[in-house]
């Protein structure tokens, strides 16, 4: 049992610049409860986690865990009882081997050797890590590392486990595994789990949702309670899951289903018993959004490219195994695939950063790895925004960082200045305001924009964006996606958007290329691809929430199309089948 009474926490407590992060929180968390902690950035949720884990000492108020009140002296007792798992597992792993890391906590507690051994073995077994016990942590995948990090905390036998935004930085399938694990921990270990997240759909089957805003608890209840109050959630910058919104709209159209709908499965089960008009498979409702039939001259041609990492060492691993595709001049292409599909390897090959062991890459008909080819000029023409580009900024001020490329190319100062101004404006940052700002004082989203401006400043013909919205919260994602949509429309660029999700970014593309296990397995417009949503799902590609709902509905509604991009289309398709009195459906 965790009890918080009038808890406050100030950063820089007692000083003029104190920030009141928590303003009198009262909460009780029962043993074995699975709790979601939601709130936008700055709402106080991460601070709350750190105070709970006795990493921060409260400014005032009381934290009590299983009868122990948090003081300087009892901090280690509380830390043992409340485990904290961070966003990036690499940051919290201490040892090199799995088993040694899991033993780290119990060793710190000074437990006898045999007890540590028994406990570590039990944790390994229950988290399915026994086979990896002696593996090097550096050889594990991201998902496995996260599991090890959790195992290390569980080995302390905590009463409560806090997961601090563990799903923000990882691919959706890994996030799902992690959530399943959170449920198992509650069921099998009896610990209470507090999961901090920005993503609503993750928490619909939790026991309880706590919404924070401005350092206070704003809402506290079951998912059913909280997600019925969509308007209040929107006030604090959050939203209900898409399927919940859809459910409410269907109700509005006279389809009586219990509210709130929290999962695609619930929606399916609610719809199936209702009377239905069989109208056969329909085509998508928006005939106008056929892709423009531009004829493209090929700019980049990739032919049967093979690439193996660490070739000739015991650590060799295959990145590409026969990838073939073309990119047309002025085309906007989505390069999609699950983890380890070879997308990032492919774009690094296109830019000559990695040399394939086999196969050819030509740009404008010229082989880029041929002798005498000017690879420097190629890199000026193809700009890449890498994953998390904000971690690659190096200059002191925004202006200097963005002007790096013009300066390197030796452009005169006036021209360089004009380019910087133009590029900053293009990413939605005012030149005068941001030119002299310190890079390290910007927010994460702003830094990412600066990094994109820096790549635009090299005035490339081809712009490659590698998972540009990954790791941002939903608001940041939407803003950046809108920005990229504008960039691709306004500038006459060839654009390659790399991603693992059929999201609003992928929808910008004229054409999508799907990769799996180092090869191109499918190509076409998104709608064409979505016809076979099950295949996409099967190779680990993440469907948009809309397509995922459609895919689940089709399991019982055989004439349900899955080639839908917008939730409004999905609503109309359902209303066509289940609507009662509506005359015509309107297209949004």
């Amino acid at each position: 049992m965790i009890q918080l009474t009038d808890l406050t926490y100030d950063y820089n407590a007692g000083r003029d610049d104190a920030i009141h992060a928590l303003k009198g929180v009262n909460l009780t968390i029962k043993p074995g409860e699975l709790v979601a902690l939601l709130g936008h950035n700055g709402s106080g949720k991460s601070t709350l986690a750190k105070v709970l884990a006795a990493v921060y000492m409260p400014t005032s108020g009381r934290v009590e865990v299983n009868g122990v009140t948090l003081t300087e002296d009892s901090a280690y007792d509380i830390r043992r009882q409340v485990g904290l798992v961070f966003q990036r597992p690499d940051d919290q792993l201490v040892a090199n081997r799995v088993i040694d890391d899991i033993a780290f906590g119990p060793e710190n507690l000074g437990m006898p050797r045999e007890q540590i051994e028994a406990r570590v073995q039990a944790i390994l077994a229950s988290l399915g890590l026994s086979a990896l016990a002696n593996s090097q942590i550096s050889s594990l995948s991201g998902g496995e590392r996260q599991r090890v990090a959790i195992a290390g905390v569980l080995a302390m036998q905590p009463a409560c486990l806090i997961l601090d935004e563990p799903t923000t930085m990882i691919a959706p399938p890994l996030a799902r595994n992690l959530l399943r694990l959170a449920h198992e921990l509650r069921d099998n270990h009896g610990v209470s789990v507090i999961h901090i997240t920005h993503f609503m759909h993750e928490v619909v089957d939790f026991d309880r949702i706590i919404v924070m805003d401005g350092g206070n608890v704003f809402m506290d209840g079951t998912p059913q309670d909280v997600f019925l109050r969509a308007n209040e959630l929107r006030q604090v910058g959050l939203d209900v899951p898409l399927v919940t919104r859809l459910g409410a709209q269907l109700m509005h159209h006279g389809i009586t289903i219990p509210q709130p709908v929290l999962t695609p499965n619930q929606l399916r089960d609610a719809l199936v018993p209702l009377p239905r008009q069989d109208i056969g498979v329909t085509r998508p409702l928006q005939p106008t959004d056929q892709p423009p039939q531009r004829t493209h001259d090929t700019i980049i041609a990739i032919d049967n490219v093979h690439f193996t990492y660490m070739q000739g060492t015991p650590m060799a691993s295959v990145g590409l195994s026969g990838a073939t595709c073309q990119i047309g001049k002025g085309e906007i292409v989505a390069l999609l695939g699950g983890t380890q599909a070879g997308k990032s390897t492919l774009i690094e090959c296109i830019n000559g950063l990695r040399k394939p062991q086999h196969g050819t890459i030509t740009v404008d008909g010229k082989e880029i790895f041929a002798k005498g080819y000017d690879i420097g000029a190629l890199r000026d023409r193809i700009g890449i925004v890498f994953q998390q580009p904000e971690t690659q900024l190096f200059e002191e001020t925004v202006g200097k960082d963005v002007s790096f490329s013009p300066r390197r190319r030796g452009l005169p100062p006036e021209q360089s200045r004009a380019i910087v101004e133009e590029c900053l404006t293009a990413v939605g940052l005012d030149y005068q305001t941001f030119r002299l700002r310190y890079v390290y004082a910007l927010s994460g989203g702003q830094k990412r924009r600066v990094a994109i401006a820096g790549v635009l400043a090299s005035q490339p013909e081809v712009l490659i964006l590698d998972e540009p919205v990954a790791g941002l919260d939903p608001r940041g994602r939407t803003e950046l996606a809108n920005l990229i949509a504008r960039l691709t429309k306004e500038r006459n660029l060839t654009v390659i958007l790399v991603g693992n999700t059929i999201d609003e970014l992928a929808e910008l593309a004229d054409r999508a290329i799907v990769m799996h296990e180092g090869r191109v397995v499918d190509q076409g417009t998104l709608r064409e691809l979505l016809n076979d949503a099950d295949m996409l799902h099967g190779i680990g590609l993440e469907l948009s929430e809309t397509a995922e709902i459609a895919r689940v509905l089709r399991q019982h509604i055989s004439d349900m199309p899955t080639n839908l991009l917008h939730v409004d289309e999905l609503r109309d398709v359902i209303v066509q089948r289940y609507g009662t009195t509506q005359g015509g459906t309107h297209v949004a």
Partner: protein
Amino acid sequence: MSLEFSRNVTFGQYIDIRSAVHNLDPRTKMICAAVIMACAFMTRGLISIAPLFALAIIVQLATRIPIGYTLRGYRLLFRTMLFFVPFQVLFYQAIPGVEMHYYWRWWILSVSYEGILGGIFTLSRVIVLYHSINTLMFTTTMMDLSDGAEIMMDPLKKLKFPVNEFVMTMTIALKFVPLLITELERLMRAQIARGVRFDQGSVIARTRKLVPVLIPLFVNALSRAEILIVAMNARCYRGGEGRTKRRTMHATARDVIAGVIVLLFGGLGAYIGRTMGI
């Protein structure tokens, strides 16, 4: 430029295969490596180094690490030696009482049969030294090395030297090395993609090009370190006092056999070197 530093830098890498050498007690391996090095210093010529060279080959085979991979790590060593060995041959000083066979002589420079043998001897010695350290790193995890070191440094605790904290610091520093290398590769790729050529320009120009890479590298490393501190605190780390260990080290019959083999070969080399000077 493919930018896979870890592909060519093999030194310090642990190769995760379970061979007879991997399974030895880390203390045995550390002592054996020390014995081999000491013996190598006592050799005097190609004949005395021969048993140690043979030992290196036996150890190499026993580790089951591909010979090609091991040799990859010798590239830098060979390049350096290619520079130094000719000097040794050219400036070889005649040993009093030994007749020299000269092929070529000019001023104080010469090429002699003895000089060439001396050069090969030096090279063999360096290989034996490098191989012993390299094999220790290839076959022993950081955790084993640090645990071994902690036990061997135990007497220092009496002098109030914070052995556990020292070893923990070293372990974590080494744990960060592969992470930082990956990070470095990533940052350099981003710079190359922005048109920077690390392989062009003068030494000063090349060094200056590294600044944009090193700044984010340090910033990211510091922020990681800050989180790690919180993480270690949250996992109740309070230094070595009151801390227990899951792992124990047992020397077994295998360790005794390994020790005997090393002593036999090493001792033979050292004995020949000391008594016969060849």
